[in-house]
């Protein structure tokens, strides 16, 4: 059984064991251990690829090229992070006696399952398989959103499921149409839906059917990615889901969805040139960035704030791809990488603050958290600086790359709009974060939040922060190689 299959099996097994039951420490151990192993396997697989071989399984249905490897590694990384943080997260709730057996089962079962689904997405070389995998991520995440079983969490879950399923319906239609467009050039059987073959056949495809397929597929997977105007489920889901799950959503699922979009883009580019799908992505991307602005300016909830920020970031990636320049694609992938490194810090520290104040609403948290929870607050500030694309951190460089590509290309207006939105977003985030972090602490007699403990969750956050900061300038060379390889995959095909 080859490495690739192991990479997928381990998290699945972890999920199985976690879902079954057993003493807490055992579950914790399995989850962390399993996810650590998974990450290791992801690295190994990526290593294999960098070594020159292309890991495949199920007759090319699963295949690891540069793009897959990149997404795989990133997903594995956040999987591990959210696993370790998750342990601390649940412990905190246990201490408050908020955890039912159902919750334990769901938590230890679904988190690894979710990770599995994401990895599955990232390695599938086949439109059909991809669709199934994405559907799995949806199903895995629904109950994580409904985890706390509050009115609002049910609401969020329902909205997510409805929009998600609709999106998947569209995606399926897109898949079908792409398949139809290539009829007679793709051959029979499962392999007919492989990227590799689709991209080869693309030039002969029936253009109209292809266009229609691309449009539907983009709407479909755009829903998962949270591109406006299909983004509406995101804020709700982020607010309701437990932070570890949110991280998987905000990084893993987002990367997965972007991965799908890129695949579709590749096909469309091979057949119609970069303008068609590029234009669509550019429009939707700009829309996403713009829609994030007002809602961040007037936001009332910390986790919703971060949801809008990830809508912004997926928008930026879309714009980067849509610019139709290699630099843009590279910038987008770099952005994806740095976003995956920076976002967890933000979500984790925000999650900690939310748990300490048993609410993620800004008013509930109140001002002056620097006094109450120095570590979490400092990390929140740091991450805010990072996710707003300020130097000297990674996202600054990726945004620079994208903006430069935009301003040197034919999309100056669009890029200017993007830039303006970025400025506005910085102001918004700075205001909202400053609002809770700075200022005098409210009278402890009025509200006494739990004291901050440096537990495993906070430790994870710190580690994540260190990684993010260091990687800003010293991104590991293999990772850079992966990004370049991925760029080749997306752009290289003439």
């Amino acid at each position, binding site marked *: 059984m080859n490495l690739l299959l192991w990479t997928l099996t381990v998290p699945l097994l972890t999920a199985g064991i976690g879902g079954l039951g057993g003493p807490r420490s055992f579950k914790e151990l399995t989850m962390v251990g399993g996810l650590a192993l998974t990450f290791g396997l992801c690295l190994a697989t990526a290593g294999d690829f960098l070594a020159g071989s292309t890991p495949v399984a199920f007759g090319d249905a699963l295949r690891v090229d540069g793009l897959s490897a990149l997404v795989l590694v990133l997903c594995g990384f956040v999987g591990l992070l959210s696993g370790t943080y998750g342990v601390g997260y649940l412990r905190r709730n246990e201490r408050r006696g908020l955890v039912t057996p159902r919750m334990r089962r769901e938590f230890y079962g679904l988190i690894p399952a979710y990770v599995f689904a994401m990895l599955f997405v990232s390695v599938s070389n086949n439109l059909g398989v991809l669709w199934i995998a994405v559907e799995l991520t949806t199903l895995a995440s629904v109950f994580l959103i409904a985890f706390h079983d509050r009115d609002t969490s049910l609401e969020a879950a329902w909205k997510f499921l409805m*929009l998600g399923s609709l999106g998947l319906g569209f995606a399926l239609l897109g898949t079908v149409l792409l398949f139809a467009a290539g009829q007679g050039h793709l051959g029979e059987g499962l392999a007919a839906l492989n990227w590799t073959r689709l991209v080869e056949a693309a030039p002969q495809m029936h253009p109209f059917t292809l266009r229609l397929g691309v449009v539907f597929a983009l709407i479909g997977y755009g829903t998962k990615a949270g591109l406006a*105007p*299909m983004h509406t489920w995101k804020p709700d889901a982020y607010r309701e889901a437990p932070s570890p799950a949110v991280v998987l959503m905000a990084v893993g699922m987002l990367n997965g969805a972007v991965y799908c979009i890129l695949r579709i883009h590749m096909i469309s580019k091979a057949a119609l040139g970069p303008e068609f799908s590029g234009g669509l992505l550019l429009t939707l991307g700009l829309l996403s960035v713009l829609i994030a602005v007002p*809602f961040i300016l*007037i936001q009332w909830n910390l986790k919703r704030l971060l949801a809008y920020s990830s809508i912004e970031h997926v928008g930026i990636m879309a714009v980067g791809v849509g610019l139709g320049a290699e630099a843009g694609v590279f910038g987008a992938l770099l952005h994806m990488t740095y976003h995956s490194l920076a976002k967890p810090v933000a979500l984790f520290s925000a999650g900690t603050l939310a748990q300490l104040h048993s609410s993620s609403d800004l008013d509930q948290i109140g001002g002056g958290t620097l006094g109450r929870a120095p570590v979490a607050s400092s990390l929140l500030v740091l991450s805010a600086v990072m996710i707003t694309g300020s130097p000297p951190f990674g996202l600054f460089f990726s945004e620079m790359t994208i903006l430069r590509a935009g301003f*040197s290309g034919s999309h*100056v207006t669009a890029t200017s709009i993007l*830039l303006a939105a970025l400025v506005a977003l910085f102001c918004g985030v*700075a205001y909202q974060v400053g609002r809770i972090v700075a200022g005098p602490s409210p009278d402890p007699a009025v509200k006494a939040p739990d004291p901050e403990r440096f537990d495993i969750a906070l430790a994870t956050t710190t580690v994540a922060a260190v990684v993010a900061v260091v990687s800003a300038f010293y991104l590991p060379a293999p990772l850079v190689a992966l990004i370049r390889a991925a760029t080749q995959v997306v752009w290289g095909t003439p």
Partner: protein
Amino acid sequence: MVGLVAVGLPAALLIRLLTVAATLALARRARTCRWVALVGSMLASLLTVTVALEVIASGLSVEGVLVRHAASGIVFDYAVTPLSAWFLMVLGVVAIPTALYSAAYFSHSVVASRIAVVGTAFNVLVGSLEAVFTASGVVAFLCAWEVMTLATAALVATEHQERASRRAAYLYLVMSHIGTGCLVAGFLVLAGQAGSLSFSALLSGHVVSGPLRDGLFALFFVGFGVKAGVIPLHVWLPEAHPAAPSSVSALMSAVLITAGIYGLYRVCGFGLGVPDQNWALALMAVGMLSAILGVLYALTQTDLKRLLAYSTIENSGIIVLGLGAAMMALAHDQRALATVAVAASLTHVLNHAIFKGLLFLGAGSVVMATGTRQIEQFGGLLRRMPWTGLFFLIGALSISGLPLLNGFPGEWLTFQALLLGFTATPGLVRLNFPLAGAMLALTSALAAACFVRAFGISFLALPRSPAAGSAHESPLLMLVPQAWLATLCVGLGLVPGVALRALEGVIVSLPGLQLTSPMAEGAWGMASGIGSFDHVVPGIFGVAVLSALAFAALLTVRREAVARRVPTWACGGDLTARTEYTATAFSKPLLMIFRAVYRPRRQVDSLADVSPYFPQEVRYRTEIEPTFERYMYAPLVRLVLGSARGMRVLQAGSLHTYLAYVLVLAVILLIWLGGTT
């Protein structure tokens, strides 16, 4: 020496990095932490200053690579050109004493408890300024620029429990980011045109032309103007500078604004090719406006640090005015004239940094001693803080542009530029120059009034509050830096030629400038550079004044022996602080005369119980209208937030609406695709 110069800058930045690391590591041990941070900063600054001086002396740029960003393949390279070196030197001249001062100052008040953060931010700020002045690539520059902004914001927010500080920090961030946005756009468009990210290619002067060029100029003007604090982009400055710890305020007022000036020079003045006449007009207009309004607002402030902040706006205006004159000259191909103007404004950059740094440090000592920033609460400090008082007086004399001190050379040269400009430029445009001259004269006269008030009310006569009465002189560690800066004030006032001679090397390195005749007459004198229009040798005149002083002393010395001290006559009553003339009263006449600018609102309620003619108590409060804040920015903010609130309906919580978005999108796209085969 040469070897040192070659590695000086990277070494300095390395030292800063290590200092920052050490500072954070020692966070728990406040005292050690403080010393490490500031000594480290001083060392690094020393290094950069040596590099700067070497470059100025030799006139040869030093270039190199700081670091590569492997992931994006962006290279951070630096180049210490003579122009950079000049600003680098200015930075060092202020940064070193400031750091020394801080070593004592940071041991007090709120700062002590946050020393790790403050120390780090201080180092990052100075380091990023050095990087800004020396970066030779777009990304490196923007990176440093942003880091500078963030570090400053952190310092401004040091006392974040105070609402004012938070507000100031946020206002600063927002304004800076609008500016940075413009810069990013400008630089990247330029880079797109030039196909390169390095300044040498970008700012060669013939990358763009036509309307695009004008558009870029506008972008850069706004972008750098925000940092330079010119009106109407100044709103953040009077909030942020006072909020920061005083020594940091000194750094901000003295050097941070020159980052904007540097940008204006590097890009607007000499980076986009031969300036357009309209650009020059824009700069001159903004410069005049900033100078005159800045000093007018300064006049009415009762918060000492705010007063100094506004006077920073004024001086920034004078500097920009000089640059504007230079650009006007270049637009008419008057190279010699442009040289004079550039010399004027760069000289003022240096001198302003020195005396403004001195004044802010003095203000810091006073604030520390009295625990307030309100001038009305001071009084009689000269007896209690003789040295601080003396140094502040020297600073006040300098900033009023009086001869024998270092405020004079800059204004003198600016006047030369303006007068020569009047004769050298054709057409109606030339009328700007005498207008600017009159404005400058008015500005410096008002500045004198402003600082007579600031010094007189704060340091002379009787204490106006118990706090002022019990004030104590600051420790030696805080006096030495002031002494050093005060010495520079006098020194550069008496021998302006020294600075000017150094400057000549910088000037010739700028494209399109050439010296027809040397402007420095030895170390002692300055000449107008063109013909024998004017020249000045403060030293000689100093002798004359001194001998006249001696004569005066001689006349009166005979009776000094029998000098009597008597109480001041207070119309029969006894003299108390209440009978003294207040700062508000002092500026009242000007407030009334410039009513149109201030639009003052006064409110007098006299509480009388028996008869209105015998009031028990009279409350008087007057405030001037914050014109720009109220009529320019407030509506903007209202608009933005209003529309943001309006957008809420998009996310009103109804799943059906959300689904409808998808439906609509799908239908639109389907119709767009149509059925065309």
